């Protein structure tokens, strides 16, 4: 009896993370010899994966078969970032045309792979995000530059966002497209009016550089995290941090939020090595519980997306790209 009570007590005291699941391997894609994947984006339907490869070619594969669907060799400069629109119909790819100084974004129609829109600016483009209705596109001008919100129909800048220094490394539109949040190199998360670029709120609790930011699908909160290793939940109305998700050992490199807003998949990077982005955790945001926890040495997680009830992510290792799913 005493043993049973002890076992029950032990089970109750075990952290939820012990019950967390690992990831399952879905598909492995072989790249040409000597070529590796640097950044990737999984389409929202989970059927395509697009990647910037070390030979500066953007390749698109079928996630189901692993077959190469398209190679996008645009001669537009060095590709730096890419993103599918929420409906999966468009793929935006940013290129650096003059090192640190000039950039270009090409928006491809996924059905025809024709360039639908060309955006050029005095800025090196890095992170790019479509608005939920895919009528607008925002880019973060990493390192030095401003960030911009573009109207895709007119190909004109709608708003210019200028952090005091250091640029932005990530950005996210609210679900109604009216607000935009940025993770800035000067240690701030900022929330702006996406139509005017007017600053609306800035939490002052951050000390270290945030690397990731995302609006929840209902628009009621903004998640942010980075070098401080904590996911902070911010109220966009007042710009205050309402709560934090438990701190982990690694730096927060990126995250995605599920469509119902209940889950977030977080990619952690070792604070000892900036090359080791090989740890991913799936969090239940309400319970602050870990549902899946996967870490594997020798891989670099390059991108992912929520597909149905799963999070599908791509991890590079040598000249292979492997798709994994959690839970």
């Amino acid at each position, binding site marked *: 009896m005493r043993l049973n009570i002890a076992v029950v007590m032990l089970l109750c005291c075990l952290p939820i993370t012990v019950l967390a699941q690992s990831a399952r391997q879905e598909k492995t894609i072989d790249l040409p010899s000597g070529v590796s994947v640097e950044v990737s984006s999984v389409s929202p339907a989970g059927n395509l994966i697009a990647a910037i490869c070390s030979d500066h070619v953007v390749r698109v594969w079928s996630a189901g078969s692993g077959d190469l669907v398209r190679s996008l060799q645009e001669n537009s400069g060095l590709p730096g970032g890419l993103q599918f629109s929420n409906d999966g119909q468009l793929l935006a790819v940013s290129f650096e045309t003059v090192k640190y100084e000039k950039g270009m974004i090409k928006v491809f129609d996924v059905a025809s792979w024709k360039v639908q829109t060309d955006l050029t600016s005095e800025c090196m483009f890095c992170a790019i995000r479509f608005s939920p209705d895919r009528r607008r596109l925002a880019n973060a001008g990493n390192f030095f530059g401003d960030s911009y919100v573009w109207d895709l129909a007119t190909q004109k800048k709608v708003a210019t966002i200028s952090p005091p220094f250091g*640029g932005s490394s990530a950005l996210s539109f609210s679900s109604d497209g009216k607000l935009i949040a940025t993770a800035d190199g000067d240690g701030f998360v900022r929330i702006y009016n996406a139509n005017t670029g007017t600053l609306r709120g800035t939490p002052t609790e951050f000390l270290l550089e945030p690397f990731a930011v995302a609006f929840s699908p209902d628009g009621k909160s903004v998640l942010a995290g980075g070098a401080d290793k904590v996911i902070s939940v911010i109220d966009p109305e007042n710009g205050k941090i309402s709560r934090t998700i438990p701190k982990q050992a690694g730096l927060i490199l990126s995250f995605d939020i599920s469509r119902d807003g209940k889950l977030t998949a977080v990619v952690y990077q070792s604070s000892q090595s900036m090359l080791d982005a090989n740890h991913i955790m799936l969090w239940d945001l309400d319970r602050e519980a870990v549902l899946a926890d996967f870490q594997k040495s020798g891989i670099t997680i390059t991108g992912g997306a929520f597909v149905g009830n799963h999070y599908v992510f791509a991890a590079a290792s040598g000249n292979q790209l492997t798709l994994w799913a959690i839970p």
Partner: protein
Amino acid sequence: MLTRRDVLQKCVTLGSAVIASHFSPEAMLAAFQDREKQVRKPTPPNVLGPFYKRLTPMKSVLREPGDPGMPLTIFGQVFNTRGDIVPGTTIEIWQTNHQGYYDLDGYRYRGKLQVDKSAAYTFESVIPGHYPDKSRPCQHVHYVVAAPGHKTLVTELYFATDPVFEGDPQKNYARDPVIQTPELIRPVMLTGEPNEMHAKVQFELRLERL
């Protein structure tokens, strides 16, 4: 574009008309424009990150007694692109320790100061280490330089003695893809006895006016 009259007026103002008088007006104009170009060139910007930390304390001595690593003194003056000193400048620097690790929990090897009346500054630190993961090849010190009426400068200081440059920074500066110009790679003066070497680096900063 400067006119000949402008050049002559400036030469008189600067007291150089007598020295320059045996040159042709064209040569004087070219020499003056060349000099102006040099004076006006701001310090090249460089990347901010990683790991800038807000609310860095005001301190210029980042090295604590007994800290491992070669002691380093970084000093210089802040000018604007006209060549005037900028006394109201705040300089913030951060770097790794001698093993190549940043302090994310505290403020070790992070400091901020206000320049003195002559716009001069000095930081006491150690030579930063190389990143152990080799994600960037060169030793460096990060700078954020802010002054009223001037564009905030984000840049980095590199060391000519860094083995990555193999003694020739002019030729090998691009081995770190982040370095766009060898101008940011500064000579290192080594002083002291062989077992107590101390490095000194001069890094003048030139700010663009708003």
